[in-house]
Structures are given as structure tokens and as C-alpha cells.
């Protein structure tokens, strides 16, 4: 691909989704956008980039952004965050929200639904601990196509074998031909909405817990900061943020800090879980 063509895609993706694509990842453009070019009747990516230089069809732009931002996922991906949700976050919320009996969780890049459904199954499995509670999941993604898939809750044999224990498959899925559909009970716990993380977040409401895993890695630093600070504003002082294993808040924002002894979980600086000796600094000494 010619450098000026690469730049057309790079600029478009940055502007529309915050995705940063570097020259060494240009092979991703080829593998993911060739089907899009075919769909829109362009001979190749170079021909498509000519169209993008003019006033491009918004449908084409959307297809390109979706093709580049759709990520691989699996049920209970990385396992640890789900253990932490069960062992640390749920017990905390059971105490702290006992009067309202309501917890809101946002899965900020839910892709084909495996993350919110894994969390819903986890909550369902622990329902005995929380009679009468409502745990709401809002799952958002940039891609409408992927959300349609998530809403349907229909997965291939390959997908239901990655990360999903067999007892949960038996309990919460039904076989439909070669595929497996997640039960209505689980599906109705999750609400799906298209959302671009670059857009103002306040309309989504407040959340107790936010999962934003393996998204920030695609953003540049100012975008990361903007997204993280937007999320900080949606959390109560005792809220939690989950980031992916390769992601961090260090050097990006001071609104969050990592929770002690837990990888990938972040708390608000100065919030209810922050045990840093801030008061020791603030207190006058030697009086």
C-alpha cells in the first residue's frame, strides 16, 4: 500500500474511532478491509482510498471503522477479572448497596457479547446471595453488526468452547442445529446499545462497575485520558474499573489508581477504596 493511501485510512480511523494504526500494522488494513472493498465494489484498497478522499458514503465509513475495531473475544476471557468480580466486587456491592439492592455495570466494548453474558451467568450462579437484587448490564460497542450478533446470543461450537465451562454450557445454552443459543434468562439481563467511546458519556447514566478491557490499547494517549476521565465521572466513590492485562492508567490520568493486590482493577483516587496516606500528607506536622 502506498504511504499516502495508508494515511487516508489512518486519519479516517483516528477521527472516527480514536483507533491508532501504525505503519507496522498496515497488514491489518489489507486483511480486514479487503472484504469491505469487495462489498463496495472497489477493485482494491487503493481504489477505495480514492473514494475516501472525496466525500465518502457514510455507510462505507461505518463499514471500515467496524471492520477495523471488531476484536476477538471469548467467554470468561482471562478468567481473573471474573474471579475478582465474584470475590471482591460482588461482596462489596452486597454490603454497600444493601439499601437499594441495585448494581449497574457497563461493558464498554462488549463485542459479540461474551463479556456481559459471562458476567450475567456469574451473577445468576450467585443469585442465592442476592435475593431481590437487580444487576443491570449495559453493553456497548461501536459496531452495530456485532451488537446484533450479541443480542441474538447465538454462538458457534468453537465459540462456546473457549473459556466457557461445560456446566455453564449445559445450564444456560440450548442447541440450535450446529450452533448454541444462550438462554432468554441471561439475554434479558443485558441491554445493548451502540456507543462510540469518543462521544460524551453522561447520557449513559451512572455505573458501579465499568469493564473497559482491551480497548484503550488502540487509542493514543490524549484519547485514553479522555475516555478514562469520562469514565471516572460516571463512577461513585466506591466504584471499580476493569482494564485489560496490557493496559494501565500510569502516566495517563491520576483519577484512577490500581487496587492493591488485584491486577487489572482500578479504583478512584481519593475514593472510598483509596487507602493511600493522603491525610498524613495533608495533616500539619511538628505543631
Amino acid at each position, binding site marked *: 500500500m502506498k504511504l499516502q493511501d495508508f494515511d487516508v485510512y489512518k486519519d479516517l480511523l483516528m477521527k472516527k474511532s480514536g483507533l491508532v494504526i501504525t505503519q507496522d500494522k498496515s497488514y491489518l488494513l489489507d486483511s480486514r478491509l479487503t472484504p469491505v472493498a469487495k462489498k463496495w465494489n472497489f477493485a482494491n484498497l487503493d481504489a477505495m482510498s480514492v473514494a475516501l478522499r472525496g466525500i465518502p458514503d457514510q455507510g462505507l465509513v461505518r463499514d471500515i471503522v467496524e471492520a477495523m475495531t471488531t476484536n476477538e473475544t*471469548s467467554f470468561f476471557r*482471562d*478468567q*481473573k477479572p471474573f474471579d475478582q468480580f465474584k470475590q471482591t466486587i460482588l461482596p462489596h456491592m452486597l454490603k454497600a448497596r444493601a439499601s437499594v439492592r441495585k448494581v449497574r455495570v457497563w461493558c464498554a466494548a462488549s463485542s459479540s457479547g461474551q463479556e456481559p453474558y459471562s458476567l450475567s451467568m456469574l451473577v445468576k450462579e450467585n443469585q442465592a446471595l442476592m435475593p431481590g437484587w437487580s444487576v443491570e448490564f449495559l453493553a456497548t460497542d461501536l459496531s452495530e453488526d456485532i451488537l446484533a450478533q450479541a443480542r441474538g446470543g447465538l454462538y458457534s*461450537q*468453537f465459540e462456546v*468452547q*473457549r*473459556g*466457557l*465451562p*461445560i*456446566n455453564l*454450557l*449445559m445450564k444456560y445454552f*440450548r*442447541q440450535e442445529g450446529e450452533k448454541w443459543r444462550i438462554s432468554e434468562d441471561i439475554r434479558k439481563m443485558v441491554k445493548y446499545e451502540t456507543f462510540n467511546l469518543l462521544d460524551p458519556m453522561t447520557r449513559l447514566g451512572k455505573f458501579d462497575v465499568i469493564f473497559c478491557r482491551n480497548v484503550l490499547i488502540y487509542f493514543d494517549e490524549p484519547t485514553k485520558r479522555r475516555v478514562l476521565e469520562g469514565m471516572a465521572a460516571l463512577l461513585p466513590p466506591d466504584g471499580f474499573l476493569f482494564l485489560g*492485562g496490557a493496559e494501565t492508567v500510569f502516566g495517563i490520568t491520576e483519577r484512577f489508581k490500581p487496587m492493591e493486590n488485584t*491486577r487489572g482493577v482500578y479504583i478512584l483516587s481519593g475514593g472510598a477504596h483509596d487507602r493511600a496516606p493522603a491525610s498524613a500528607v495533608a495533616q500539619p506536622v511538628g505543631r
Partner: protein
Amino acid sequence: MKSCLVVDDSRVVRKVARRIAEELGFSCEEAEDGQKAYESCQASMPDVIMLDWNMPVMSGIEFLEKLRQMENGDHPKVVFCTTENDMAHIQRAIMAGANEYIMKPFDRDIVESKFVQAGILEQTVS
């Protein structure tokens, strides 16, 4: 080192499964049917068994039922690896004492993820 017994009547499948198990850090034995697997367990009880369903002489499910009656026969974690991919078979396997169930075809990712779910392997941080 933990040990894994690979039970399948196809030499090709045994070879693939063995390679995956070895990559995951297991020492491996092979058996080509349920009877041979039973004899292997009598000689030495493995930590993990990857088990096919349809085999000559003794099927995987027959073997599993006999295994769970053996002394120390509840020690191995048993992971079915079979082309039988319907709920009835899955339920029967779990009732008989299987710990996990893989529907063929499988790859390393699936085996690793199932081993983690069955508590055979620690989750590696990715």
C-alpha cells in the same frame, strides 16, 4: 511433572492431542481404546485423561464408569474429546463423572481453556 493419558483410536488424533498436552507441560501416555486405558490406569494413575467416546473394544463412557469405581479412580480429571456434540451426550458424560467436555475439532486454545476451567492448569496472564 503432571501426567496425561490420551485415549483415542485414531493415531493422528492421539498425536495432535499428545503434542498439545506436552506443550502445556504434561508427560504423556497413549491408549487406543478403553480397555488399554483401563490397564494403563491400573499400572499408574494419571493426573489427566483426554478421552474419546467411540472406540472399539471398550468405549470412552464405559471406561469412565469403570475408572470412577477404581481405587484412586476419582483422582484423574477427565476431559472428553469427541465428535459427539449434542446435549444428551454431554449430560451423560458429566453424569458419569467427566470434568470437562471438548467437541471435536479442537485446537490448543480450546484444550488450554478447558484445562483451566477444570482446574488442571493455572490461568496464564495474557
